[in-house]
């Protein structure tokens, strides 16, 4: 909590001088997936908590959050975003996938508003190149590259990739980007297997892994819980003692409860957007939010808080709630304060943040940060 105040509000307050002139509200419209398939990845509670905190601090423009449920339907998210824009939102967001974000970015151009998708990691939006789009999370290739560095350092040399087309490039290509980085470091990708999101029995894939020669010493997958927890347990039960390597889909508080065995967890590594469960700044923020009655759960709430905190800091830096001025300030040199990292910069990439990528492991059943840096090599994904 104290650390957060130092780095978050502290930095924001140093930028507060021009804010005295700000009279209008800062309106952020969140077309949120409160229900439906994408509800587990909603950033709403973290955003609400941060807005509440900043409004209570009384510095800069008052934040008005507009939140409506999309039911995880992309078309509905576009309609809701249009409504928010009509109400004067300077920043809007939708479902963190291109079928929602591309049309929202198109309609937002007319008002100059920024589309800020806190949990978006897929490269499609970056490749599409919208000037008014900003993602709160690093692109998947960066995540895969950082995780490859940590996995190689942990001793993995021969990895099998589990891939699925069900969740777009996140589940299909992220393992490949990991593999390219892993091979760049000197490792080998010994095979690729298919899976579906929602798998509750991994026996066929495990039989395929057991039949591989030479036997892989690591498995890499970008998927969600509880699928991942089942995979980890089944691999262990079938005598696989290698590493199980993953992405931000692993970063859910239920991972430990699903796997339960500390020795099995020791073989798990995953890259994410900020360390949770390690007693750091994000945990302090989440605990503070819970104490105030916000139903925050984990890393996606922290990303939602990032979005509000950065937008607010940018408005203060710009001395205006003009949407274009806010976006320019978001992309200014030096970056803005965040919860998932002390400083998050868009000056270099425009639409994707430059920030460190923490890779999490386990010791005695507890999360530890194995590394937290910008990866040295990232596969060419553009």
């Amino acid at each position, binding site marked *: 909590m104290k650390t957060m105040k130092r780095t978050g509000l502290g930095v924001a307050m140093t930028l507060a001088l021009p804010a005295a002139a700000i009279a209008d509200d800062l309106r952020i419209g969140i077309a949120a997936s*409160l*229900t*439906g*398939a994408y*509800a*587990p990845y*909603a950033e709403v509670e973290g955003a609400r908590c941060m807005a509440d905190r900043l409004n209570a601090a009384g510095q800069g423009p008052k934040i008005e959050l507009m939140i409506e449920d999309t039911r995880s339907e992309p078309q509905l998210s576009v309609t809701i975003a249009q409504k928010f824009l009509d109400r004067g939102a300077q920043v809007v967001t939708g479902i963190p996938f291109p079928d929602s974000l591309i049309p929202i970015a198109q309609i937002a151009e007319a008002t100059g508003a920024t589309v800020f998708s806190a949990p978006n990691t897929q490269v499609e939006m970056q490749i599409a190149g919208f000037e008014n789009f900003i993602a709160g999370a690093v692109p998947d290739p960066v995540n895969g590259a950082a995780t490859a560095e940590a996995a190689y350092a942990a001793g993995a040399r021969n990895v099998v990739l589990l*891939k*699925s*087309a069900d969740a777009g490039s996140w589940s*299909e290509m992220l393992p490949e980007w990991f593999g390219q980085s892993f091979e760049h470091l000197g490792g080998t990708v010994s*095979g*690729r*297997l*298919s*899976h*579906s999101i*929602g798998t*509750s*029995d991994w*026996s*066929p*894939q*495990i*039989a*395929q892994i*057991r*039949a591989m020669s030479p036997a892989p010493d690591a498995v890499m997958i970008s998927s969600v*819980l*509880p699928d991942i*927890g*089942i995979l980890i*347990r*089944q691999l262990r*039960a*079938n*005598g696989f003692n290698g590493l199980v390597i993953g992405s931000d889909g692993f970063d*859910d*508080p*239920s991972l*430990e*409860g*699903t*796997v*339960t065995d500390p020795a099995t967890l020791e073989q798990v590594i995953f890259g994410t957007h900020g360390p949770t469960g390690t007693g750091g700044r994000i945990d302090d923020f989440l605990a503070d939010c819970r104490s105030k009655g916000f*139903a925050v*759960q*984990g890393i996606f709430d922290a990303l939602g808080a990032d979005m509000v905190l950065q937008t607010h800091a940018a408005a203060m830096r710009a001395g205006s709630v003009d949407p274009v001025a806010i976006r320019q300030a978001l992309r200014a040199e030096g970056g803005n304060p965040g919860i998932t990292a002390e400083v998050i910069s868009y000056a270099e990439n425009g639409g994707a943040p430059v920030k460190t990528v923490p890779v999490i492991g386990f010791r005695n059943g507890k999360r530890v940060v194995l590394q937290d840096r910008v990866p040295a090599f990232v596969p060419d994904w553009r």
Partner: protein
Amino acid sequence: MTEYLIQQLLNALAFGAEYALIALGLAVVFSIMGLVNFAHGEVIAASAYAALLFAGLGLGAPLLVIGLAIAAAIAVSVTLERVAFRPVRNAPVTTGLLTAFGVSIVLQNLFQLLISPRPQAFPALNGLNATWHIGPWAVSSLQVMELVVALLAMLALGGFLGRSSLGIAMRAASRDFATVRLMGIQANRVVAAAFVISGALAGIACVFILARRGGVTPDMGFSLVLKAFVACVIGGFGSLFGAAAGGMLLGFIEVGLLVLLPQEMGGLKEALTYVIVTLILVYRPEGLFGSRRDLGDKEF
């Protein structure tokens, strides 16, 4: 290679057993009411959340959890019949179908909004999922139990429908409900019995799903019910045996495609599954064990 194929054969049997258990639950209700109960998956999820609640209250012993999960599933199933399906019992089939979808969505949304959209860890039944190494094969205890329980459930259901008076009334009702009522049998009793059986099957399936997943999610039953529906169609929607056989066949198709398809074609697995299902239905439009004349006959 032979060892590998036998291993995958065992895996296919386990996949099939899970689909068969859920397909039986769908088929029992369909046989009486002509209702495809797509909310069956949410009965499974409700049962899982009830188990989570009981465990939170200190009732987390595995046997207790199993009993309470099945009891909760029966209670939810019967409640849904009373609250949602009874009012539309005499409405067209499509009304029942839409009602079932509506109930399914409402329950999923309630789980998401009132509990959490994110997975809730539930390790109380993890102990059921041990791996037995028999020679070169690794067999999951859960796979064996699921297969055995699916077979026992089918036999018990067959015995109940063939020998008990209520079971015979249910079979008769599935053929001609009006005549059965004229003979003095209460319609509500017959329909409620179907939902009790369906709920019990959902509860049993829930136990296996929980033991395998170690966690609860709002949509944990929905996709499985869609597959069970496909299994019922393959097997012939009027036949309990067909539902179980369709589930087994679907398991074999899925595992077979997973094993045989090259990885770069892995994304086609679902599509090819449905191509095979379509081919089966082109060959046997009424399903493998259905018949045009007796569509609706539930005899084994």
